């Protein structure tokens, strides 16, 4: 196991914050008060928590459609996220963005976008600005295995390597693009991280269900990038538990079996780390229950505030176009 007791505790609590939030929101979804297509991060928490723990507050994070975990792990405002899902004025985009466009500039969550691979290049541009201004900040781009098939992924890796930019590419390989398995979409002979190496950047495969391994790999990657040696890619193998978009389980759809899903649920990063920390005497089961209770209270409050918040006035609909 990597990391000090403090780091491991922080990783557990970061993952729990994502899981509790996502599960509570997923449970509320059928009420139809949140009307925005939502790609839940349940099952993929370890990547966001592990990478974020290796970052500084002034590092900039970019994400795709499945952005809740990345937003929360980087310190994104919970209330602003929940209000955004409810389409309210207090939302992080004022009700104009929705689930797939989360942003919190104060927390360094610059932009998320629903178009596959789009923000990979935007992160590279942020890194270009950091490099031009001689800052030692870095940009992180999270994307899935689906985005790897887009030309922009390859253009971005090429550009970042040629320009030696401070950007960390984090591929969350969850094995499916919507319902289509990786085997239908990419050559089995060359892994994603091997393709990154083909562009001349260091790249490592990581078990995306071992949060401490993700943290350790991210720490190495960040050290490499901050020392001015250019971009780095992590390929984190992970798994989404719920349907591609929406709150339901989907093992009765035929593209994957319940036993497939159960095998990953069995490996749950949160449960594993919790058991280890308790066994190591770092924390007690009661403490973990207390943390979870506090998180539940926070989310309940956020939902209540969001429900009570106003919708943006229709007269303001045009504002911000220019």
């Amino acid at each position, binding site marked *: 196991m990597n990391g000090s007791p403090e780091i491991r505790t922080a990783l557990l609590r970061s993952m729990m914050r994502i899981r509790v939030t996502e599960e509570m929101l997923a449970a509320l979804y059928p009420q139809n008060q949140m009307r925005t297509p939502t790609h839940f991060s349940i099952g993929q928490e370890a990547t966001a928590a592990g990478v974020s723990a290796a970052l500084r507050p002034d590092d900039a994070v970019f994400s795709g459609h499945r952005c809740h975990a990345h937003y929360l792990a980087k310190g994104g405002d919970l209330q602003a996220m929940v209000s955004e899902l409810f389409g309210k004025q207090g939302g992080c985009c004022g009700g104009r963005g929705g689930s797939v466009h989360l942003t919190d500039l104060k927390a360094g969550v610059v*932009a998320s*976008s629903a178009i596959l691979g789009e923000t990979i290049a935007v992160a590279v541009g*942020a*890194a270009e600005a*950091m490099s031009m201004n001689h800052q030692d900040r870095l940009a992180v781009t999270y994307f899935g295995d689906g985005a790897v098939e887009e030309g*922009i992924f390859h*253009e971005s890796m*090429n550009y970042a390597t040629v320009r030696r930019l401070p950007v960390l590419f984090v591929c969350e390989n969850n094995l499916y693009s919507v319902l289509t398995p990786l085997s239908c979409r990419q050559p089995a002979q060359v892994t994603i991280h091997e393709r990154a190496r083909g562009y001349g950047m260091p790249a490592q495969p990581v078990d995306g269900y071992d949060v401490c391994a993700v943290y350790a790999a991210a720490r190495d990657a960040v050290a490499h990038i901050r020392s001015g040696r250019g971009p780095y890619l992590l390929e984190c193998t992970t798994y989404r538990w719920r349907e591609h978009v929406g709150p339901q389980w989907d093992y009765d759809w035929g593209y994957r079996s319940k036993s497939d899903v159960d095998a990953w649920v069995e490996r749950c990063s949160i449960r594993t780390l919790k058991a280890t920390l308790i066994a190591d005497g770092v924390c007690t089961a009661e403490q973990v229950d207390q943390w979870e209770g506090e998180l539940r209270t926070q989310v309940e409050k956020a939902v209540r505030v969001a429900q009570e918040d106003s919708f943006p006035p229709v007269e303001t609909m045009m504002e911000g176009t*220019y």
Partner: protein
Amino acid sequence: MARTITYRDAISEALVQCMEADASIFVVGGGVDDVRGVWGTTVEARRRFGPRVFDVPNCENAMGGVVIGAAALGMRPVWVHARNDFMFLALDQLINMAAKWKYMYGHARGVPIVVRGVIGRGWGQGATHCQSIQATLAHYPGLYVGMPSTPADAKGMLVQAMRGEVPTLVLEHRALYDHPGEVPESPTPVPFGSGAILRRGQDVTIVGASLMAYEALRAAALLQEVGVSAEVIDPRSIRPLDWDLIRSSVESTGRLVVVDTSWAMCGFSAEVVARAAETCLGALKAPPVRVTPPDHPAPVSQPLEDAYHPSPRSIANACLDVMNRNERADTSVPDVQKHFMGPY
């Protein structure tokens, strides 16, 4: 103080003066730092500002993201395309990110990128090197689209773009690059959404931007020979569009001819005619006419190419048609690219 310089030198001067004043401006694009510097428009900026003017890999899709990401972190990128046809590869970033950033994310500052795209014409540029994509770009709220026709506007609109807060596309016309004109020495911005009356007239309003404003002026001279007085309106920016200026001209002449470098279907000319129908139909003494390339891709072979683009003669003849006059315009006016020897 104004003096006479070319369109290309006016562009160069805008870059140099704005980069001098604002360290956050940088210039990227294919060939911006080579000896020719995009027909001389980036040579002086490169000489003075070195690494702030740099060539990049061929990756229009990613480059769109790169300039947007840099702008999101406070920079002011100027991104140059030697042919605007290549910008189709960047449309996702321009339309889905740049145009929507400020609105969708609710950030106080948007992503003020400046994109220069050059429209080609003549010497067999062909189907993929002489399109002009203003209609494609102007369709999307959140962007500005400018099409300067004079050296002063080429400088002033670029200055405005580099000082403004809106993602702005400036389409320059290669056929105008050698044209001289009076240009203020100081970096004087030309606002977007403000058209110009290039020539006063009573009988017919000709609306045309970029090279078509120049061609409309040549057409107006032909029309004068047969006693027709044409008013020439250069909208200068396609989005926002100075509709008030066009409408008041149409209301005064009662006749409208719209000329465009691009096709009629869903094009800029369609927008102008639609607005005329919506706002000043009663003032029209005759149905409006559009003068545009015919509805097919651009051919290469010289006689076909010569027949393809709107010319002073075709514009003048359209005006005569609107006037219900039987004369035809003089055929001796040379093609605007007559002396162009290529390749680009």
